[in-house]
């Protein structure tokens, strides 16, 4: 296990390095001069030259890369052009919105998707199975924007229960008033949760069915379990590695996937922030943000792999 852990971490470091090179080169190799784009296409050449010198874009690529990485190592992700704030603190503020939103959304999705997925496998009558199928398809097909609007109209405007109107949006002082901030996240999280929940339901269903097709469920039933118990006790446990993969991937996907929802509910999160920075051509900030995102994906991949190890005794015999 320790050998595996070391190997997996080395792989993680290697992937991180490759990602940093790709992100770095992508912004410089792509057509168009970085400084010209950032300064604006119509700005005078002196301004472009000044910006180029300021950002160090006139230096050799290797030196630029070295500077950037050295900065990352120190925790210095550069500063944003727009406000001159450190990228780290800007991203930090966005994470405080996106992360709770995703966690809450994912919890709702799991709370809906896993039981419904189980129920759709257990359903006895053809009508019930069809109903579950319809729920999964409709839930997965609903556009986030539309679902969000419906919820806003129902709860925000209609009943006025929740202060989610884009006008109020997320409190200006962030989590200064935790209750107010949490309340602002409820509707967006429900919107995300319902949509992601539908896909979790389909994954749960197919994972359970693939476990059932191995005969392990029948075996457990033959020993004296009811179908329900065999599915929930044996089936879900055996499907766990598959579900962990799905949840890990979904989680990573949601960081940028909730962009639409963030925009709709006026939440200045990571996804909408990234788009902001792109439209403001703040490419140095974008570079660091992309790297952070990629690093986060890699961390999730690492966690998923390690969880698999812990969940399945069949893995891991090769290095014991």
């Amino acid at each position: 296990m320790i050998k595996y852990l070391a190997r997996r971490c080395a792989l993680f470091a290697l992937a991180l390095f490759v990602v940093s090179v790709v992100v770095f080169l992508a912004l410089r190799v792509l057509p168009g001069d970085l400084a010209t784009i950032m300064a604006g296409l119509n700005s005078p050449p002196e301004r472009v030259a000044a910006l180029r010198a300021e950002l160090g874009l006139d230096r050799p690529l290797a030196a630029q890369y070295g500077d950037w990485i050295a900065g990352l190592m120190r925790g210095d992700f550069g500063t944003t052009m727009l406000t001159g704030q450190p990228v780290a603190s800007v991203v930090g503020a966005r994470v405080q919105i996106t992360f709770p939103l995703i966690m809450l959304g994912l919890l709702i999705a799991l709370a809906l998707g896993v039981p419904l997925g189980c129920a759709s496998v257990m359903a006895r009558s053809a009508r019930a199975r069809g109903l579950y199928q319809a729920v999964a398809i409709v839930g997965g097909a609903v556009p986030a924007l539309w679902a969000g609007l419906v919820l806003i109209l129902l709860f925000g405007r209609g009943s006025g229960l929740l202060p989610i109107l884009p006008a109020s949006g997320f409190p200006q002082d962030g989590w200064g008033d935790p209750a107010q901030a949490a309340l602002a996240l409820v509707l967006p999280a429900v919107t995300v949760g319902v949509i992601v929940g539908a896909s979790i339901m389909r994954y749960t269903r197919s994972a359970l069915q693939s476990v059932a097709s191995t005969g392990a469920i029948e075996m457990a039933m033959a020993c004296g379990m009811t179908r329900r118990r065999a599915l929930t006790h044996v089936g879900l446990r055996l499907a766990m590695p598959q579900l962990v993969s799905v949840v890990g991937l979904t989680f990573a996907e949601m960081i940028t996937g909730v962009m639409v929802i963030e925009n709709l509910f006026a939440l200045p999160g990571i996804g909408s922030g990234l788009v902001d920075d792109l439209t403001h051509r703040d490419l140095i900030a974008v570079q660091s943000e992309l790297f952070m995102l990629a690093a986060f994906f890699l961390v999730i991949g690492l966690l998923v792999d390690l969880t698999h190890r812990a969940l399945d005794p069949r893995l891991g015999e090769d290095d014991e």
Partner: protein
Amino acid sequence: MGIVVDDLQVAIGSRPILHGVHLEVRDGQRVGLVGPSGSGKSMISRAIMGLLPPTAGCTGSIELNGRQLVGLPDAEMAALRGAAVGMVFQNPGTALNPLLTVGRQIALPLELHYELTADEREGRVRAMMRKVGLPDELYGRRPHELSGGQQQRVGIATALITSPRLIIADEPTTALDSMTQRQIVDLLVSLVDEAGAALLFITHDFSVLARATRYCYVLDAGRIVERGRTEALLEAPHTPQARTLVEAARRLTLHVDGTGAQETETEEGR
């Protein structure tokens, strides 16, 4: 007493699988059910065990020791499974729970049906492991660490641990090599006889059936087409379906001692 299946009809969705099957296994009897793949053999065992998929419809009668099983709620079926009826599966490599140790797998029916202390359970499991020829040190191992033959011994031990009156073995040797097949069949037969239980042995392979049973049914396309003493059927099958199966057994395996082996040689000589 025993199991009496009468006019059993099973359909998956709108597709009929079994068309009015009748068969009986009396207490202490070993009875075979033979048929080509796709004939519906496994549907019969699943119907008896209450393991039909939720999409299946089942009518007719299945009486276990006089009790009607068709239409019984799953909770009541579960109380019989692993206690009154034990089942040995075709592919132990995938049927055994990969997370359970050999000891816990074999103990599962005991846990589900009896109130025993952990020590009592372990004692019974270790005794059963000796009976099926599993070395004691395998108690804490998991299925993926065992050979195919050992896995099926775990399957047999799990089916027999509660001393059920009826054992259903659904193609228990198909996933094994021919040497192991013979050992597993002999083991199953001796343990069933020792316990005085009844055995329904399901296979597509007549040669295995000859070792395991005295009496058998031939199933084809969801209907019982022939029944009789296994030896007699092997020597003089009446129906073309049975004849095909007998010829296949003679041709393809070495299990029928004497004539079978010669047939194989002449077959190779051609």
